[in-house]
């Protein structure tokens, strides 16, 4: 792979409020996020020549529907279905390095909460008629299998949700900030056993944007640039044709490639971000990326590594379990702010230099980016 290390940087981040905003479209929320990201970068929209949008779950927020509100036609525009910030960022890096655009804004907007989207509508199929609905179903399959193979317990697994809540309590933007102890977690009822409500993201409305440009230009921006040091992707687009599909083995390939592409190892990473519609994503990715041995992710998280003060801070924003729904986009915003050293003091990790952000497009694709403070 072409060495992309340090050639592109994130120079602006921004977001709308997070919550329920009836009457605001995904596109409008995207513009609110872009407005905040432009202000953070200290530029105006006239300096943007690329726009990469990420579709909302209902299909809105394409580049051609954000464009009329953006009010400009940049020379480069593109849309990804489920960018999770990672796929979108990788596309931006490619566009900048090939000269398609110089300064790109990436944006996600969603109003699935106020639109009351049904995430559990059965498909007219054998599975749907069997009541196999919602992402918690297939995620629960993966966890139940993990418990059977490796002896992972609810008390161990619950620490993903509990430690994210501990971080969220230090994040004013987070929607879920009530205290959650492991005892409190275990006392909650199952939603789709072995998953509890606390293991599954709650839908919220909002928008998130990033501004990305070449490392050369980045030096003229007011914020400390955060450089993209490596990226990798993988897929399982062949679909559900083999028994082990719920465990998402494609992530293992992406993990191998990000370490190989960059020469970094898990012990080099100061802060870790995992996009997580369910806590099963945390479990799978801490193992695939090598922070815990395969089968040991539950015992590892129960040792406290990911909590405030731990040696591998994970989802310091509160993640999708406690902060908000934003498909991982706010994970990247948080990573950038942590690397700049500008989050609230009780949440700031001391002098982080390298962050890993891992995400997936459901069971079909995976992506990883390593970002850092020096080229």
């Amino acid at each position, binding site marked *: 792979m072409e060495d992309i290390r340090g050639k592109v940087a994130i120079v602006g981040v921004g977001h709308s409020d997070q919550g329920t905003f009836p009457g605001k479209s995904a596109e409008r929320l995207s513009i609110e996020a872009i407005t905040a990201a432009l202000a953070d970068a200290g530029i105006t929209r006239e300096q943007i020549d690329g726009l990469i949008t990420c579709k909302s779950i209902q299909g809105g927020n394409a580049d051609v529907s954000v464009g009329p509100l953006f009010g400009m036609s940049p020379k480069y525009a593109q849309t990804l279905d489920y960018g999770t910030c990672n796929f979108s960022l990788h596309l931006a890096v490619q566009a900048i390095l090939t000269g398609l655009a110089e300064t790109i804004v990436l944006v996600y907007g969603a109003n699935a909460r106020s639109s009351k989207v049904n995430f559990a509508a059965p498909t007219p199929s054998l599975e749907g008629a069997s009541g196999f609905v919602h992402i918690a179903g297939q995620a629960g399959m*993966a966890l139940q299998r993990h418990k059977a193979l490796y002896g992972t317990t609810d008390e161990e697994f619950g620490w993903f949700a509990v430690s994210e809540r501990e971080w969220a309590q230090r994040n004013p933007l987070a929607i879920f900030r009530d205290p959650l102890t492991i005892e409190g977690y275990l006392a909650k009822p199952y939603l789709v056993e072995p998953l509890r409500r606390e293991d599954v993201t709650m839908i919220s409305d909002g928008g998130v944007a990033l501004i990305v440009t070449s490392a050369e230009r980045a030096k003229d921006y007011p914020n400390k640039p955060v450089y993209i040091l490596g990226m990798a992707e993988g897929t399982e687009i062949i679909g559900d044709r083999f028994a082990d599909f719920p465990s998402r083995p494609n992530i293992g390939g992406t993990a191998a490639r990000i370490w190989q592409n960059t020469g970094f190892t898990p012990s080099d990473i100061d802060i870790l971000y995992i996009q997580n519609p369910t806590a099963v994503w945390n479990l799978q990715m801490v193992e695939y990326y090598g922070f815990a041995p395969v089968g040991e992710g539950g015992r590892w998280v129960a040792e406290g590594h990911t909590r405030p003060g731990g040696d591998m801070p994970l989802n310091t924003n509160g993640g999708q379990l406690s902060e908000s729904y934003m498909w991982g986009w706010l994970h990247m915003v948080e990573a950038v702010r942590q690397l700049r050293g500008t989050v609230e003091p009780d949440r700031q990790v001391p002098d982080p230099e390298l962050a890993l952000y891992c995400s997936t497009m459901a069971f079909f694709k995976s992506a990883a980016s390593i970002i850092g403070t020096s080229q």
Partner: protein
Amino acid sequence: MTYAPTSNATPQNLPDVADPATAAFWEAAREHRLLAQRCDACGDLRYPATEICPRCWSDSQSWVPIAPTGELYSYVVYHRALDPSMKDEIPYVVGRVLTDDGVVFTVRLDVEPDEARVGMRLVASWNDVTDAVTLLRFAAP
């Protein structure tokens, strides 16, 4: 917790059993026989059906009987009706079943939640929902 295998439950989201691409599967299901789609060219065995073979791209395929037995790869128990149409059925168990011929089905289990075990042996059971629709399930042998 009492859990009655819901053999008389009526799911409200029934598949289209008249779809020519899958009608043979549902016709056999009405007779409590399990079929899968097999590629005539390379033997690829699969469910659900695909328009062409993903392995060799042949568009010639047949529905063939497969062993109605297998093992439980994993399972979940729905304690909440995430879709309102399921409200009369909770709690219910859905299993990911790896049949002995290698075809995977994700369907309802006629197994008590506390008796389900990853790796347990299973045999097809059948739920006659309507005159036209019989749904595949699995139960302990």
